[in-house]
């Protein structure tokens, strides 16, 4: 059973620089996936590859079980809103809907109408507020009754209120169509509100991939006296180490309970967790302790 969006070792290089590399992920059916990562991690690139605007340099990508570069039918079933929600500025709202109807075989005008609500159909796109414009772009994407919805930074230009309204429209549309949604965004709070699953992209490919619950369950904050770091039972990986005075705080990924009584173990919030991962992508990962100090201690 293939997932609506599936990539294997996907990579894209622009003029010698890798925008995305070694990306393997799947977005399962009927989930809302938050795709996040620092600037330049390849979120937009991944979505562009998924709608066939770009061709992979290496690896494979399958959208609704098909190759997006070869199959126009697959794209016909993907609702994509690119960054900045591109629309024809001189078109009115009604003309934009007519454009979508004319360029799509499957077009559910009633659904698009419903999602737009009271927005005046005679307003020109250039005169819409950012919130209205995003809403129109989303209605165009969802009116295709897509199996997969891809949104590239949908919240970037929206104030919090408009973002909330946008999410509401999205959720209504998703409830109606049963689509899988992938939202690429830097803004972690948006993800927290909407997504069941998180994929975090970093330089080395996919850094995190799991449901929100899994991620929260498998990460802990450890607080204790500052000390050189060796192995801690139950800890799979130290994501981030932070000192303040004599105190040491570790963000760790666990593979079992941490029972060492010298550590205070606390759960971590999603926002802090994702920010920590993004920070480690940009900064060098904490160095292992120097051997001399280890010897001194032990």
């Amino acid at each position, binding site marked *: 059973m293939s997932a609506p969006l599936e990539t294997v070792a996907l990579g894209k290089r622009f003029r010698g620089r890798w925008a995305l590399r070694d990306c393997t992920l799947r977005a399962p059916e009927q989930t809302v996936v938050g795709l996040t990562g620092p600037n330049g991690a390849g979120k937009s690139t991944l979505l562009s590859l998924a709608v066939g605007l770009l061709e992979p340099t290496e690896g494979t990508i399958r959208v609704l079980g098909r190759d997006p570069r070869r199959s126009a039918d697959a794209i016909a079933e993907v609702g*994509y809103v690119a960054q*900045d929600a*591109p*629309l*024809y500025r001189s078109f009115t709202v009604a003309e934009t809907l007519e454009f979508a109807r004319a*360029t799509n075989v*499957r*077009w559910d005008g009633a659904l698009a109408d419903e999602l737009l609500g009271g927005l005046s159909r005679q307003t020109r796109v250039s005169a819409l507020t950012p919130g209205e414009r995003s809403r129109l772009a989303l209605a165009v994407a969802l009116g*295709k009754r897509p199996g997969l919805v891809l949104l590239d930074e949908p919240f970037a230009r929206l104030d919090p209120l408009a973002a909330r309204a946008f999410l509401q429209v999205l959720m209504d549309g998703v409830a109606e169509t049963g689509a899988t949604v992938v939202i690429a965004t830097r803004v972690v709070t948006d993800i927290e509100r909407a997504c069941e699953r998180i994929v975090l992209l970093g330089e080395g490919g996919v850094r995190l991939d799991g449901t929100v619950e899994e991620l929260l369950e498998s990460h802990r904050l450890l607080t204790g006296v500052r000390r050189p770091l060796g192995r801690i039972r139950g800890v799979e990986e130290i994501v981030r180490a932070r000192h303040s005075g004599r105190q040491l705080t570790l963000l760790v990924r666990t593979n079992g309970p941490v029972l060492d009584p010298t550590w205070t173990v606390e759960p971590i919030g999603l926002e802090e967790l994702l920010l920590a991962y993004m920070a480690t992508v940009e900064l060098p990962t904490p160095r292992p302790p120097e051997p001399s100090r280890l010897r001194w201690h032990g």
Partner: protein
Amino acid sequence: MAWVIWRQHRLQLLAVGGLVLLVAVAAVATALPVRAAYHRQALSSCLPPALRPGCELIVGHFRSEFAARAAVARWLILLPGLAGVLIGAPLLAREFEHGTYRLAWTQGISRQRWLLSKTALLGLAVVAASLALAGVAMWWREPFDHVDGRMSPAAFDVEGIVVPAYALFALAVGILAGLVLRRTLAALSVAAAAFVAVRLGVEKLLRPRYLPPLHQVASGLSAPTRSRGWVLDNALVDTLGRKITTGREDLAVLHAQRASVDPQQYFSSLGWRRVITFQPPDRFWVFQGIEAAIFVALAAVVLLAAVALVRRRPA
């Protein structure tokens, strides 16, 4: 899709339509005195093969009276290329500039089909507009064509089926330039330059050779003032058929003057003749067919390249 194309390009299409209308109105306004003079001076009876004495004068008057108008009408050669480039260059470049290709190419139609249907419909519009232009030009130039024939570029370039072929080629070049350069202004300039280069290249290098030109030995030494064909060359040749340079000709004239001999007699005594190389007027439609075929074929090649590129090129 037709509605989408109309909605997106209606300004350009209306502008082209308006241009054609404007040209037609200007043509009607300026044609009537020409036609009146043509009939008044009974020019038709003065045209070959009926050559009555004094006809030279009448034809000369007609020519000089309307030379300015005919010169203005030559600017019509710009319009088909202009229409094609103006519609073709922004077709893709504007989508790239505004980022809307990400909208247009992620709907239910493949981008090749999107490009092909746009090209087909706009191509049709451009062909229709340029056919109208050619029709207007042919009607307007009718009296001039009776006098001078329509093989020379002044008439050939604005009449007949080459006009839509030029427009189609300009459209294709504009589209490809827009796809490669992604900016409207750059695409416009490059496409216009490329169009002019190819168009002039074909006119100057290929057109004289579509069929082998004919040669005619003129009776006098000065070039005949009335030839309805396209005169490619008229040169003095010596008895062996070698071309005499104008420098040598001038020297010979000076020589004759010093000896108080009529230069014309002096030349004939040397056995020099004037040979005219020309394409005869009855080849008009053959040449039109050949040149139109060349430009339609070029347009097809450029368009195929654009379609192949739009499929392959990452956006």
